[in-house]
Each structure stands twice: as structure tokens, then as C-alpha cells.
């Protein structure tokens, strides 16, 4: 019995190793391991053995079975690979692949999605609002009353009011997504955490770093104890998440009528790595995220009590963020529908 099993094993292994193809292997599998294969038949003989011999021979039979199975499976994988190799050798694999026709999302979309994701992680909700806006929400409610010199920094496109009851100068194209601050706050109560991505408009030249239409994302939070330190932490976290953790940032004081204290955020220019180029006006830094603690007058305009709640607000120049991230030297590339640009993203 023992001898027979060993003989089965030896003959099976040598036949398997000599097999030429998958079919031959399949036949061998049936011949040895099948229900009426040689091994199965031998195992059936086990019961005829004296009791004390059975365990030992049983173990041996199992071992033989495992060996045959392993050898077949190894050989199988070798044969398959070889077959694939032979087929590949018949064709020219250097011919470029036939690609599925899949389109490309715009780089702005990728950046907006990233920004939204980062802020969602901090508990912010996303809102959207009108681009055709009243003077009130765009300026007056933001502590920029009529005739405030600060309005000069946001040269405004006004809408034609012919055939309407609206006075010229009352309706404009929003100069900032901050128009949504009071709109949102007056309809809800703190705590508020929200971002507003969107298009904004200003009278400006069209060149490598300016445009009359550009994208911003406004963000603000109001709660019972929000501080300037929290603002710095948020700006730092968000920009590192979006632009990479190794970016260089610095903060500076500035003035926007709707914040006090006011903050400007600079990022080391990614185009020239801080050496100075036309993109960063030779300063090596790019102004990217104006911010500040919400001015008490704005909180009051929204119906909040500045003694009880505080908040911060910030805006990111999305168009600039896109060009910085992808090292695009010209803002106009973002509105150019050339597929040679689009297909890079």
C-alpha cells in the first residue's frame, strides 16, 4: 500500500511537470484526483488495512494528495503565464493603448471640491447666493456706507436700470462673496460656520494676474468665543490642507471695513518659489487670503449682539489658488476653453 501511494505520487508529479498545456493538466487532474482516479481508488482500499496501520497510511495518502494538488496548481499558473506571454509576443505591445473617451473636469472644479471638503471637515456648511446684488448687502451692511473711500478698492460694475423702478447705482454685480455674510446671518442664529464659493466682479484690467471676473470663496464663523488665534489656526490648517503642508505662510495687518482686527495672509509664491516673478509682483509672496474678526457693525447689521458673540471671516481668491497650485502663469488660462489646457487635468 505504502509503495503504491509513493508510486502514484512519483508518476503524477513527473507527468504533471511534463504537461504541455492546460488541457493536459486538466486530464491529469481527473486521472489522479478525480472520483475514480488512481489516488481515490487507493484511498478506498484503506478500510481493508488493519486498524493500527490505517492512521499512518492515511496521513501518507493525504500528503500525496496535497503534493499532487500543489504541483498541478503551480504548473497551471506557469502554463497560463506562458500562454499569455506567447500571445503577447504575437502582437506589437508598444502601439499606444486605445483610451476610453473620458472628459476632464476643470481645474477650478477640483480646487472648489477640495476647499469644500476641507471646510466640511471643520464643520462648515456650503452656501450659494446672488451675483446680481444690492448695494446694501455688498457694501453698506459690511460697514462700507455710501461715499466710504474704502469702496474705491472695489471698483464696481453697475447694472443698467432702464425700464425699471430701480435707481441707477443700486443694483450691482457683487464685488465680493462677502455679500452673503449678512444675508445668511440675518436668517440664522449662531453658531454659524459657512463657506460661500462663487463668482465675483470688479472693474479691472484683464492681464496675467487680473480680471473683471474672478472666483472667491467667502467663509465665516460666529460663536460665543471665537478669537483671532482661532482665525490664524483655521487659515493655517486650511491652506496647508489645500496647498500642501510644506507651504510658507505669513500674516500681516490690513484694513477691510468689515473686519477688525484685519488680517492678510500671504503664501510664498509657488511659481518662483519666493525668488520673485511677474506673478507675485517680484515680492516672492502672493496675497491669498484676506481675513479678520467680524466688525461689530456687521454683527449688528445681522441682528447679533457683538458683546455676546464674536466671529471671523475670510476670503480665498480661488482663481489665484488654482493658478498657484498648478503653476499656471496666467489667470486667463482659466477661462480659455482650449482642450489642450483642459486635457491636462
Amino acid at each position, binding site marked *: 500500500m505504502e509503495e503504491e501511494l509513493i508510486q502514484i505520487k512519483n508518476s503524477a508529479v513527473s507527468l504533471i511537470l511534463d504537461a504541455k498545456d492546460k488541457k493536459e493538466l486538466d486530464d491529469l487532474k481527473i486521472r489522479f484526483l478525480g472520483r475514480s482516479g488512481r489516488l481515490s481508488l487507493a484511498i478506498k482500499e484503506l478500510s481493508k488495512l488493519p486498524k493500527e496501520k490505517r492512521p499512518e497510511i492515511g496521513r501518507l495518502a493525504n500528503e500525496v494528495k496535497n503534493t499532487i494538488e500543489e504541483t498541478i496548481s503551480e504548473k497551471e499558473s506557469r502554463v497560463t503565464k506562458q500562454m499569455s506571454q506567447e500571445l503577447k509576443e504575437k502582437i506589437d505591445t508598444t502601439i499606444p493603448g486605445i483610451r476610453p473617451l*473620458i*472628459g*476632464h473636469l*476643470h481645474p*477650478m472644479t477640483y480646487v472648489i*471640491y477640495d476647499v469644500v471638503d476641507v471646510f466640511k471637515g*471643520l464643520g462648515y456648511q456650503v*452656501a450659494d447666493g446672488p*451675483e*446680481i446684488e444690492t448695494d446694501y448687502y455688498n457694501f453698506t451692511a459690511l460697514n462700507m456706507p455710501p461715499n466710504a*473711500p*474704502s469702496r474705491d*478698492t472695489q471698483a464696481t*460694475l*453697475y*447694472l*443698467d*436700470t*432702464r*425700464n*425699471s423702478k430701480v435707481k*441707477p447705482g443700486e443694483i450691482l454685480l457683487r464685488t465680493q462673496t462677502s455679500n452673503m455674510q449678512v444675508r*445668511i446671518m440675518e436668517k*440664522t*442664529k449662531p*453658531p*454659524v460656520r*459657512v463657506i460661500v464659493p462663487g463668482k465675483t*466682479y470688479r*472693474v*479691472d484690467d484683464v492681464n496675467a494676474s487680473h480680471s473683471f*471676473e474672478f472666483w472667491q470663496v467667502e467663509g465665516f*464663523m460666529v*460663536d460665543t*468665543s*471665537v*478669537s483671532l*488665534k*482661532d482665525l*490664524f489656526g483655521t487659515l*493655517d*490648517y486650511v491652506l496647508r490642507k489645500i496647498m500642501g503642508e510644506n507651504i510658507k505662510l505669513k500674516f*500681516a*495687518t*490690513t*484694513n477691510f*471695513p468689515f473686519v*477688525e482686527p*484685519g488680517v492678510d495672509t500671504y503664501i510664498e509664491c509657488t511659481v518662483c518659489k519666493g525668488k520673485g516673478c511677474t506673478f507675485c*509682483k*517680484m515680492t516672492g509672496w502672493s496675497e491669498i487670503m484676506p481675513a479678520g474678526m467680524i*466688525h461689530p457693525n456687521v454683527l449688528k447689521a445681522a441682528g447679533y449682539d457683538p458683546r455676546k458673540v*464674536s466671529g471671523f471671516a475670510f476670503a480665498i481668491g480661488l482663481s489665484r489658488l488654482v493658478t498657484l497650485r498648478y503653476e499656471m502663469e496666467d489667470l486667463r488660462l*482659466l*477661462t480659455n*476653453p*482650449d*482642450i489642450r489646457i*483642459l*486635457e491636462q487635468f
Partner: protein
Amino acid sequence: MLAPLSWLKEYVDVKLSPKNLGERLTEIGLSTEKIIKDGDDIIFEFEITPNRPDLLSILGIAREIAAVENTKIKFPKLSSDLKPQKKLPLKIEANVSINPRFTGIIIDGITVRESPAWLKEKLIKIGQRPINNIVDITNYVMFELGNPIHAFDYKKIKGSLMKVHQAKGGEKFTSVDEITYRLPKGAVIISDSEKIIDLCGIKGELNSGTFENTKTIFIRVPVEVPVLIRKTATSLSLRSEASSIFEKGVNKGGTVDALKRCVELVLKEAGGQIASDLFDIKKEVFSPWKLNLKLERLNKILGISITEGEVLNLLQRLNLTPLKKAKDAVEVTIPTYRNDLKIEEDIIEEVARLYGYNKFPKTIPHGQIPIVQVPYLKDYEMEKKVKNVLIASGFSEIYTYSLISETDLLENGINPNKSLRVDNPVSREFEYLRPSLVPSLKKALLQNKPCFEKINLFELGKVYVGSNINESEEFYSLCAVSNNKNFYEVKGIIERMFEDYGINEEWAKYIQIFDEGVFFELNFSDILSKMNLSKKYKPIPKYPPIIEDLTIEVFEKITVGDIIGEIKKQSPLISQISLLDVFGSSKTFHIVYQDRQKNLTNQEVSKIREKILHALKKKFKAGLKE
């Protein structure tokens, strides 16, 4: 604002290197745009924020440097008295409501000539053109101290009268640089007994300016009303260094010092003698004002604990004269040149900026995450769904301008008179708000034609409709174009997109076929309002379906939609029908019969088939192809 380091050093000791100084000044709010080498000197170019007109002067910048360097400024020494040597007549009819302060003096016997080298050099360094010693001195003192000054030729002031009043509108005014304007109503002006001699706070009149033969001058250092100056300057599109300071708020307490400085320099460089008392007609005393700062609030807003000692020190360096009032309270005194400091938060910023924004720790706010849905909610996940389908179908996304030209409208058959228009467009090319995305996509398609055979583009962006501003409405539009997909392929894409949104509607009406390609445009905001995202799993059938293809001969002009509709009506066991093939008048339909309760038998299916054929014959005179 240009500021030469050499000039700054006259008032403040500078220890920092120009680069470090620039960085520190930027950090505290005086944004350093450029540092330019100019021979032995260094010239800083600063961007001044509108709230800080005091920084439109060298001394103002020196004060900021002194705060950074922790030192004191050296204010120019001024003679204490302005004693007249003689008295020439002058009657001033001031009006403090439109001209809150009118400070002035007469100097007689001067010689107008070219300025001395030191003066010319200083002005040239800050980008000013030297004119003559008198004009240059008034300019110099304005740039030095921040109070604008105008010198009149005293002998040209008829009737020895200066009357401050407002223009009726339409009056002619010729400025010292010989440009003639028509004044807007309300412009603050000075007239003598015959004519207008000054457009206050903006420009002097040519008829009373200082020229070579001027022997006697009247020097005026005013405080103007910001709004009035701004309105007139805006209306005339006429701005000057002076108007830019006045409209932001001049140092109301600084007029006499500026006058003294000016007189001193005139006497020194042009000779002459003081020929009148000091005129100083003013609405009020214009003294420094006080604000209170609570340390607890300061530390709450800033989120750090700055010690009382440090707060006092920082405020002292900013010349805000802090005075400890109570345990937690500090009173500060605001110098008259700091019109921007009005509330406690302003003082908190003063402390924070000099403390150094970059020294703050950075923390993520505590507090409750808002749960209530924000008003104006936008869900980008909805956008992603539709963009995914379009990308997978081969379309690439573009972003185009919302502002388009009249030609763009006309070429697409849109009436410009019924479109929203910008009053002051940056150019004719960007004059109208787009009521549709089709014009932009058409252009994009044409632009890509030379380089690409297969072009598939889409945009998801706002459009703006309405024939006037009262009726204006803006909403998101989804528009796509393909020059290589046929109508049915485009329709299929739309069908697939709206399956995702759970909307069941006939979408063919949104597709347009132009020479350039197949377009579709949808009101995406509308789609979002109709969508139904609730999805529920339906178990897959346990029993196999029976599938058959029927080729139907249709002789009349009957739509496939009608035939499918009719077939479907015949039995609830018909679970799917699609059009497999069309050949001439015969159409092959692929029909799936499915009973969810049991195995269907051929007999049952053949009964339904009979019913279908009967109905098609009756309704459309159509039958099985022989």
C-alpha cells in the same frame, strides 16, 4: 506712497535693515510693495489702506517705524509764534459746516524762484515734479506732515475777500494745471468779490495761483468734509494728493503746525515777512479723544493672554498714551491724526498688530458644530453626480465669462434690449450678462476645431435672464455641445443623468441641433428642485424572464415612442421594451416578459403577443413583418 529712507531718518532712528524693516512694516499694516535702491538711498514703496490717510506722509510712516523700533520720533522744531510784521487786509467768510477748519496767514515780499537743490531732490525722489519754491514748499510740507496746503497769490484775491460756499452747479473752473471743468452742484469753493478762486481740497484756480511775479501769498491749511470732497472729486474724475487725504480724513489737529512749518520754510527760501495775524476759524477745538479698553475683552478677542504691562508698553509705542484706570481697564488718548481709531476693537487691533500677528499661537476653534441647515445651502454632491456622467461620456468642462458682447447675443438670436446689461462695462466685449451658455460653448467649439476632430464640452454655470432689472433672475444652467455624438447619444446621456436624480421627463425638447453640433441646455436649478433622490432596493426576480424580438411593419408615420407606449399598455408582465433595429419601414422591438410570482409559460406569452399584435393593427394598421 514713496518714502526715501534718508528722509525718514530725519525723524526716526532706523536700526533694522531695509529688508527687515519692510517685512515688519508689512506685518503691522504698512504693506511694503517694493524696496528700490536709488544711489546711496533706499526708497520704499508702500500701499496705504484707505483707513490710514496719516500714512500718506513721511512723518506718519516714521511714526510706524518708531513703534516698530521702540523709539521716539523727532518732530521738526517749529517756531512758537507767528508774529506779523505788518497787517494786510483780508476778510474770510468761512462756513464751518462745509469747511470745518480754515487756518491761514499772509506773507508779503517773497521772491518766487526755482527751489533749492535739497528741496527739488526730495520731491523728485517721491515722484513729484518741482515747480517753484512756493508750490514746492507747500507740497513738501504736505508730504512731510500730511496736511494739504494751498498758496494763493494774495494780490489776485479781489476785494480782499475769501468766501467759502458751495457751487450751484455748472460754474466754470480752470485748475492751476490749465484744465477747465464745469463744477457739480455742492462742490465746496472759495470766491473773492468777483470770481471763484479755489476748488477746496482738490485743486486751486489758475487765476489765483503762485507764479514768477507773485510777491504776496496767502497760505491756507484747511480741514475739509470728506464726503463733500469725495463727491466732487468722483463727479469730476479729478483727484489730487490733497483730495485723497481729505476724503479719507485729514489730521484736524495738525493745521497750525503745518502752517508754521510752511511759513518757516517760505521765509527761509523765498524771503518776505508775515503780513497778517493767524487765521484759524474752526468748528470745534479738535482735541484728541479718549477710548476705553478692557483687558479681558482684548484677551478674549485675541485668544491669548498679553500681560497688562505689555499692553501698556505696546500702546505707548503707538503714541496712544495709555492710562490705567481700573484693575481691568485702560484709557487711551487718540492723537488727532488717527481718525481710524473709533471703537474698542480698533485699539485691540493696535495691540495685536504691534505684538506681531506671526507670534500668535494657531488653534482650531472649539464650540458646537452647527446642525441647523444654513440658509442658501448649496450641495456640491448634486453637481458631482451630473459632472461625473458628462465626464464619463467624454465631455470636458469649461468655465467662461458671465459677461458677453452684444454680437454674441445677436449671433444667437437673442434680443439685447431684453437682456441684462452693465452700465459701465470694462469693454464692449463684456457688456451683457449671458442669458444662455450656448453662445460661449459655440465659441469654445469653434476655437478648438483647428486642433481637434472630436469636441465634447460642457459648462455648469449661472445664466441671468430678464428684460429689466426688476424681473431679473439668475439660475444655474447646464449646457453641453458635441460635434461627434448624434442626437440619440446625447439624449441617452441626459436620460442617464436624470435617472440619477429620479426625474422622469421627456428631455428631447432641451436638445438643439445646429450646424456646429448637437447642444443641450437645461435649467439646472430647476432640476435640483424637482429631483427625488430616495432610492429603494427592489429584489431581483426569482424566475427567469422570457425574451423575444418582434419585427413590426409600420406603414404610416408613427413614432417609436407611440408604439412602445401602446405595447407597454397591453400587459403588466411586459417589464422592458427597447428598439433593437430599424430597417426601412420595419422596426424590431426587444421585449422582456417577466412574472415576479412564478415561471412564465410560453402559452401565457403567446397570449400577450396576440394582444400586442391586435392592438398595433387596430391602432396603427401595423403588423408583424411577413
